[in-house]
């Protein structure tokens, strides 16, 4: 195998080469650092690259492997989205507010991955504070889609999805509040999973909307996704929403038979006027599942139409509360006002430190929570959240999982969507899973206009294993995940 082919590996393939000593972690890490050096000027998927730290970690990983103490991710080079706190390494959330912020602790997922010996290549770009669907809201720079550099990679985990798609890391972690892992995975032709809410610790993930945020893997195939999920999931006493006793053998369960499983098609996810080519590809996938012995039935989730509105009340309300901490006093950007008054300082700091979309979301949330409007907006949205959750529970009595498109369209042009509401509509199929806390995955299901299309699978909470094994069986029978972006092919 030539050295420059190492970048094409999946985690499970790299594991074999590392274990058989055909390659060292140091060599593998060097391949990726050189790859980032040559390709990232095209995709801009990284905010920072931590080369020195990576090579040092690789040295430790090689020791571990030499002593036979390795596990799945020992010596595997990865990227982390830049809203995950890394001790001593800048964590910016793609915001001017945190441009120079250096965390004094690791988030739990980073801690777990580092303990296992995974190698941090650098931090991935995102929409500022993970608010957006195109990664154009980053304070630093936008990211280009490796399939077509004129297109957005999706968002908010656009950096992680583009980096995986362009072979600039073996895997990355994203965070998903309303689709921020799955929609960019769909746009960039990679695998992205939002696990059950509470399965992966949020400790040290810079908070956006605490009842919706969830960290998950972005990988080249479903097997890698299961490997990463197995490493990062599990109870954490530092996160009070973390679920106990959740351990499942995601990797071992992956290859179990799916025939006889039941898949539901929720008709509300195929609305009139939706992109015909996306619809066609998802229906082709449904035919493929039939061939695999899966039973298909149409189901209905009548309150789906309310999900977007519910999301855009709950998420900004929680964001308004979470982002109140940025006052220019304890950390982050600080700017003095001209009134010699601390509140004027705080207002000036927040005007200068937050970008447009973040300011808009804080305003939306503040309004929805303000006296006189709380019952009409926030409380009402929480009640509809109950209805949406109950509808899912009901449907999951009849079917094991649901199949839908991940996003209504393929990737759009950079700069094309400037209206905030139009941008919000990108996440119409992904938000319900956050509202109900469901495990959900996006996997490639074909190409339209030269760009990847993703399908989404959702299951009842804690049925992450079912989502993964359905996705794996489909992937193995179709091979869509083997298609490489032009950047990965070196064109």
């Amino acid at each position, binding site marked *: 195998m030539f050295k420059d082919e190492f970048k094409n590996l999946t985690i499970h393939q790299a594991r074999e080469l590392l274990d058989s000593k055909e390659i060292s972690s140091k060599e593998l890490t060097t391949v990726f650092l050189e790859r980032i050096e040559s390709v990232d000027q095209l995709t801009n998927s990284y905010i920072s690259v931590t080369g020195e730290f990576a090579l040092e970690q690789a040295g430790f990983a090689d020791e571990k492997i030499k002593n036979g103490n390795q596990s799945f991710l020992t010596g595997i080079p990865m990227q982390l989205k830049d809203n995950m706190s890394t001790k001593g390494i800048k964590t910016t959330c793609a915001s001017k507010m945190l441009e120079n912020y250096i965390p004094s602790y690791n988030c739990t997922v980073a801690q777990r991955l580092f303990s296992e010996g995974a190698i941090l290549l650098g931090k991935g770009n995102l929409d500022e504070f993970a608010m957006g669907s195109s990664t154009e809201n980053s304070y630093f720079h936008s990211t280009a889609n490796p399939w077509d550099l004129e297109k957005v990679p999706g968002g908010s985990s656009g950096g992680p999805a583009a980096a995986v798609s362009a072979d600039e890391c073996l895997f990355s972690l994203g965070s998903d509040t309303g689709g921020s892992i799955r929609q960019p995975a769909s746009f960039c032709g990679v695998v992205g999973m939002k696990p059950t809410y509470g399965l992966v610790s949020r400790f040290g993930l810079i908070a956006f909307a605490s009842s919706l945020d969830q960290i998950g893997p972005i990988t080249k195939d479903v097997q890698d996704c299961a490997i990463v999920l197995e490493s990062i999931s599990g109870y954490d006493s530092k996160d009070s929403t973390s679920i106990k006793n959740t351990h499942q053998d995601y990797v071992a369960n992956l290859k179990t038979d799916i025939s006889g499983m039941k898949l539901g098609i929720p008709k509300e996810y195929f609305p009139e006027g939706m992109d015909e080519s996306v619809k066609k590809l998802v229906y082709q996938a449904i035919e493929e599942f039939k061939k695999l012995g899966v039973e298909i039935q149409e189901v209905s989730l009548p309150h789906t139409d309310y999900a977007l509105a519910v999301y855009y009340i709950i998420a900004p309300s929680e964001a308004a509360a979470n982002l109140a901490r940025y006052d220019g*006093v*304890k950390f982050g950007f600080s700017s003095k006002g001209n009134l010699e008054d601390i509140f004027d300082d705080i*207002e000036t700091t927040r005007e200068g430190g937050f970008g447009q979309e973040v300011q808009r979301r804080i305003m939306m949330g503040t309004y929805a929570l303000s006296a006189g409007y709380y019952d009409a*907006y926030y409380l009402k949205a929480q009640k509809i959240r109950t209805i949406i959750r109950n509808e899912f529970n009901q449907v999951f009595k009849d079917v094991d999982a649901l199949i839908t498109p991940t996003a209504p369209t393929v990737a759009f042009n950079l700069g094309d969507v400037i209206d905030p509401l139009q941008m919000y509509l990108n996440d119409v199929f992904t938000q319900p899973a956050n509202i109900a806390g469901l495990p959900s995955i996006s996997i490639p299901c074909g190409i339209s206009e030269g760009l990847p299309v993703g399908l989404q699978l959702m299951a009842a909470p804690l049925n992450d294993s079912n989502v993964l094994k359905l996705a794996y069986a489909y992937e193995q029978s179709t091979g869509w995940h083997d298609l490489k972006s032009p950047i990965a092919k070196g064109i």
Partner: protein
Amino acid sequence: MSLDFEQVRKISKLSRIKMTDDQINKMRFELEKIFNHIDVIKNADTEKVEPTGHSVDLDSVFRNDVVENSTSVKDVLRNAPDTEDDFFSVRKII
């Protein structure tokens, strides 16, 4: 729904974000458009429905009060815009 200038000014005050009159007017237009869409929630019948705050049922988490090593003051203050000795420094408040 409609929002007047003073309402948006008030929201910006509550949000502690300084805004010029032009920014207020732009924000007013954007918020109106978004909330006109959000207002579909009025059509949902939620009588006798309990609100959901979290998708998983949460229990209160308790732990023993044990003294552990905490983050070093130096590490924490490294990110502070202005400090004096081991303290954050701000303008006089009262």
